[in-house]
């Protein structure tokens, strides 16, 4: 995976692989969106990790209840962004304190790099990811 790429939006209708456990398959919607959590289960100014077949994805919730999803991997040295402090629309990586924009995945200058973004939406209090 190339951690530098800054427009890694996945294509629409990316094929959903079979879940090994099968337990959550009923949560999948037909149009490629997958229900991952209730918004209230993510702490405000916090994050949860979603373990997926595509690797760990961090789902963030801001103070205004906006929800964002990034690959759980800092472009610097791969730190788990889900563990960082969330402020405004940014998260500070727990390893070396890089600031990453939640909406664009980009490191705040003068640092350079980009975390992969995933499409995310909130409906009726639930968070959906397209992975």
């Amino acid at each position, binding site marked *: 995976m190339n951690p530098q790429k800054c427009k890694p939006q996945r294509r629409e209708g990316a094929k959903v692989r079979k879940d090994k456990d099968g337990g959550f398959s009923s*949560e999948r919607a037909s149009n490629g969106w*997958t229900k991952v959590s209730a918004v209230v289960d993510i702490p405000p100014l916090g994050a949860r990790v*979603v373990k*997926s077949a595509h690797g760990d994805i961090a789902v963030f919730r801001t103070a205004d209840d906006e929800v964002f999803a990034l690959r759980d991997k800092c472009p610097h040295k791969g730190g788990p962004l889900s*563990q960082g*402090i969330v402020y*405004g629309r940014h998260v500070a990586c727990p390893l070396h304190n890089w*600031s990453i924009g939640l909406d664009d995945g980009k490191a705040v200058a003068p640092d350079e790099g980009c975390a992969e973004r995933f499409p995310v939406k909130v409906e009726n209090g639930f968070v959906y990811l397209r992975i």
Partner: protein
Amino acid sequence: MNKMKLVMVGNGMAGVRTLEELLKIARDFYDITVFGAEPYANYNRILLSPVLAGEMTLKDIMLNDVDWYEQHGIRLHLGKKVARIDRSVGKVVAADGTEENYDRLLLATGSNPFILPIPGRDLQGVLTYRDIQDTNAMIEAAARYKRAVVIGGGLLGLEAANGLRQRGMDVTVVHLMEWLMERQLDRTAAAMLQKSLEQKGLKFLLRRQTGAILGTADGRVTGVRFADGEEIGADLVCMAVGIRPNEELARSAGIHCNRGIVVNDTMQTFDPRIYAVGECVSHRGTAYGLVAPLFEMAKVCANHLAHMGIGRYEGSVTSTKLKVTGVDLFSAGNFTGGAGTEEVVLHDAAGGIYKRLILKDNCIVGGVLYGDTVDGSWYLQMLREKQNVAQIRDQLMFGQSHLGNTGHQGQSKAAAMPDAMEVCGCNGVCKGTIVKAIKEKGLFTLEDVRRHTKASSSCGSCTGLVEQILASTVGGAYSPQPNRAKPMCDCTDFTHEEVRRAIREQHLLTIPGVMRFMEWRTSNGCASCRPALNYYLISAWPHEARDDPQSRFINERAHANIQKDGTYSVVPRMFGGVTNSAQLRRIADVVDKYQVPTVKVTGAQRIDLLGIRKEDLPKVWADLAMPSGHAYAKALRTVKTCVGSEWCRFGVQDSTQMGIDLEQAFWKMYAPHKVKMAVSGCPRNCAESGIKDVGVIGVDSGWEIYVAGNGGIKTEVAQFLCRVKTAEEVLEYAGAFIQLYREEARYLDRTVHWVRRAGLDYVKQRVLDDAEGRKALYARLQYALRGEKDPWAERAQGADRHEFEALTV
């Protein structure tokens, strides 16, 4: 809605810095227009000396090119001098007739070089040294002519002389006073400087008053005649005898001026719609010629222009460094002494080192350093903070970095380091990289350098070196950030102390409450202020303010230490470093059950289990059935002990039990930073009490207590606090000391940093002299800890489950 119109007259460093600060906090507030008399965009005027000396080019020193103005929607009129201000209708008119209306006007007209009122001053070949044009004229002259005379042996004159010499001219510096740079140096330092410049080939004529400049009939300079009739030949004469604030425009518009445009603490002139910053202003009777104060003004001015005004500019203590390659010189404050002052001097003539500090009432009021300036910024900081130095007088001259600093090969003089040598051992940054970033990116502050290069941004032990590199690269423009006035972070202009006071006095209980009351600029702070606020709240109002886990660094939120691969490490508490077979057996079982890859004995007499997956943490804690070691927290870590009188043939006190008692009493205690303690059973001190925040040493008659030691980044030997008789007294005195630290230190201060600032005398007065105060401090600590739970036990039983459970799809 139409935007307000802001017009700036003057396109120099102070003005443009004001615009940069303004755009940072209020991007779309104004429609901005800039008039610059020079045909260039904003360049770094203080780097003209290296340009003259041929070490840099004009391109290297551009700070904002024309594109920058365009990108930010700023209308730029270059090469247009503003001729008048019409305050009645709010407009400025340039000499070529260009007009602009303004709602707010910012004057940043800078200064003019002073021209001696002597015959011959208009001759061809007589120059001043102020801008690119002057610099280019000198470079051209150096190529064609041989002999140069620089009038003025101050900072600017010497830099000009050095530059001309580098360009191959035969340079004589003429100075009116008895020694060089008399406004910054004493006679001894000036003599050393003169000698070293003479070795570079400069000549000096001191105590010479210039009477006239001589020239040919067709108006070309030929020499200089002094008041006593002596003459010397010259093909180029550079006048560097000082600068005068350029107040002409303001004065002609009827704005009050007095050796500069007079401004108040918000940088407003007597016309409230007109602001002024930079070398053109007179603030509290002082006009500043160095860049650092100008940047402070810029910040305050931008704040007020953006209607966010709470900042005030209250003047600056300035310091000087000379930008001549190979000369290390620093001067600040009152360096001449006088009634009521005393001086400390270190003079090694052969080694080329001279240090002189002036003290008054045990505070540094000024100083001169020559040859070894590594501690200049440290002295300046103590000067500004009026720190009492009575306790460190005996070490003062040897500086801050004389012991224990690691990570940069023992280097303390940046000038002596080759470009390829590593400065910052944490982030692998070498000197050349730092110099390059400073020059290319136009960096001025330590913070800038840290952001761009990461040098000194981790453990900070190379900060002094980075500051030196910064200072020698940008010269007089560099001024260390005064800790006193430093705001908590970019979200606010308030200092740590101001925020703590407001929390206490206003009975603030939540982070949003503090941010509202103190008008935070950001809606929910940043990763730097939120953990500090959380600590200030829970330490000021125990059992009232609620801990906010989302404002804790991950280690304190997850109660384990995050590792580079995202796994965690677990260090169970072993009170006093004592364990038993049952604990060890459970640890061994956990290691097997969770396949813990590494088990390590720590430096603090405990066992570290590394590589544990986050989701396993609560189960690991349940299986261990041992309390949290808080090895991850800004809290009491460990109390290290030796075996003491129970076993040791030398021990005179039961240090193990004393350590257990201390740890039992104070564990679960959060603090501004980690707190480490140790107890030794005799003065052989096997528990290394001399480098702990609180170190206790058993003696035959009782216990000695040492405080504010540190064994980490920089080894700091703990200082003797007192001797007590009983174990109960050890608890009370140590507890009172720690509580005072918890109440008064800044977040992330170790005890050594706080004690250095507050002074050991103050600590002694609060903890030793005031018995009732001591008991009250101790009681407050006990109250804060009452009912505090073991975080591992709580989480083993299911608290904060969401923190540890991943979602799956």
